């Protein structure tokens, strides 16, 4: 049909059941495993807090939204296994840009990010999360505050981004556990190698995915290393 062929293409879409729209407030699109959401402060399997109050997260934060003060542990009732613990820990979510540099800076994997980013507060006090709100509960799950929109499954992968980075700085870290256990989960399993994961997530038409990775990994020899970016 030449010029007019396009009209048939669009006409054929009428009445199709296939829809690309996600009815957002009612349903949500699936989130990537490493999406950057609201932070949590993790605890060890025995319930001790991981945070040691070192303020590296506050130092690296480009938005200057983290405020930390450390204090010495009481020898009788220690909060964290080490010498010191995070006495005050506040994140101002009016400033946070969810860059995850704090997660990368943290030496004890204390701070990680959940997948929940849909929270709307109505005053400044709610926007500044204190330590009491950030620390995970006794099951190791993030606390669900009234102004946050949690859906099932969003609170499970709270440390995915941390586990996707190389804890030792080595390029080839896949399959290597480089992190401590977490309350409620134990030692989390490492992520699958990139080529295996590609095969799992997009079995048929993953041309685009591979193309993207090809651009990302320009200069790398081996494709299996690319999770470390």
């Amino acid at each position, binding site marked *: 049909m030449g010029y007019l062929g396009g*009209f048939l293409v*669009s*006409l054929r*879409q*009428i009445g199709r059941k296939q*829809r690309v*729209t996600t009815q957002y407030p009612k349903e949500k699109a699936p989130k990537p495993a490493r999406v950057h959401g609201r932070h949590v402060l993790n605890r060890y399997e025995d319930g001790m807090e991981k945070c040691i109050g070192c303020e590296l997260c506050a130092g690296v934060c480009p938005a200057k939204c983290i405020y930390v003060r450390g204090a010495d542990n009481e020898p009788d009732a220690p909060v964290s296994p080490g010498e010191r613990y995070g006495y005050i820990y506040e994140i101002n979510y009016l400033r946070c840009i969810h860059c995850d540099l704090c997660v990368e800076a943290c030496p004890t994997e204390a701070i990680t990010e959940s997948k929940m980013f849909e929270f709307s507060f109505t005053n400044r006090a709610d926007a500044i999360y204190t330590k009491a709100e950030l620390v995970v509960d006794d099951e190791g799950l993030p606390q669900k505050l009234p102004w946050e929109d949690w859906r099932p499954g969003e609170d499970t992968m709270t440390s995915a981004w941390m586990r996707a980075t190389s804890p030792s700085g080595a390029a080839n870290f896949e399959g290597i556990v480089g992190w401590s256990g977490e309350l409620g989960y134990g030692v989390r399993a490492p992520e699958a190698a990139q080529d295996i994961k590609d095969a799992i997530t997009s079995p048929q038409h993953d041309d685009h995915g591979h193309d993207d990775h090809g651009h990302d990994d320009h200069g790398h020899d081996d494709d299996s290393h690319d999770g470390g970016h």
Partner: protein
Amino acid sequence: MMSGGDPLLAGHVDLAVVLIVLLKVVGIFAFLLVATMLMIWFERKFVSDLQNRVGPNTAGPFGVLQTLADGIKFFFKEDLKPARAELRVFILAPFLTVVPAFLLFTIIPFGGDFSNGHDGSVEMFGRTTYLQLADPAIGILFALAMSSIAVYGVMLAGWSSGSKYPLLGSVRASAQMVSYEAALGLSICAVVLTTGTLSTHEMVVSQAGSGWGNFIPNWNLLAAGIVPFVVFMIASQAELNRPPFDVVEAEQELVGSYHTEYSSIRFALFFVAEFMNSVTMAAIIATLFLGGPAGPALFGPGWLWGMIWFLVKVIGLLFVFVWVRGTVPRVRYDQLMDLGWKVLIPLSLGWILVLATFHVAREQHWNGVITIVIGGAVFLIGYGLLKFAIATSKARRLEGVVD
């Protein structure tokens, strides 16, 4: 042919006549508003269907009340007036756009009994009248005049906003509307040539009944040839600033063009006028080329079938409008001007010449075959010369001889 005009106004004008006219005014006003509301909903819903989206689905059944909700929201929005705006003109401009949009519909025959050789007049409270608000002798020229006045609204809105993008957008808009009005007018010329009248009512009467084989309709689409219809369809989309010719509102380049600085109900006036013009333009196309309300009365009263045929044709045309919008990507500004000046205007000019030749040939009883051959040959020669001229100027431009 002298246009008779509406028989209602021919005799003594008394209270009943005034009331009937008022009834028609209120009826058309209500119809236009409701039709515009439904058109906005239909366009959003149908385009989303073409693009595998959902579209409005929350307000009312199938989201049909979405436009109403938007309208109410517009009323309660803050009415911003830019500090650098030329305030009087800024306030006047939306009305210059919306009033012609309403007036444009007054000449449209939206109903009437055209079946079985009736002339479209109906009995209303004991008076004979046409189902159209006004049937002036200038007829379709009024439509051209109104759409030209609407350009002022666009132009002044952009100029008075005191902002760069609206100004650029309004310059584009007025250039586009003025140049496509030429193609629009020339294809109307072909219709006027065929029907021999400017009155919209007379046009519908001339298209009523059946042509060949007592089955093919007697429409101007066939009588004036398909070319004016196609040219009019394309040019009307440009005149309405609808996609694919919405370079005026190219968001990526010009934000919102001439209505960038408008907010609240002033913006809503522009928005309503745009979609109202779409409805009216569909009605004009139906009147000019598809016989308007003329059509067979299958059963029941004939005047009812006039309205039904009118609505069927208008809705069908609006369907095509939205279909085009959902299919064709936006053209570039220079492509738009090329299409207007180098294709549509020469094409409709040539077609008018051929059409006029045929009419003269029929009256003078010339040999039909020779007329067609010579007419076609002249048409082709003209086409070749135009092609040659455009190619030459393009080559010279590329060589840098002229800018």
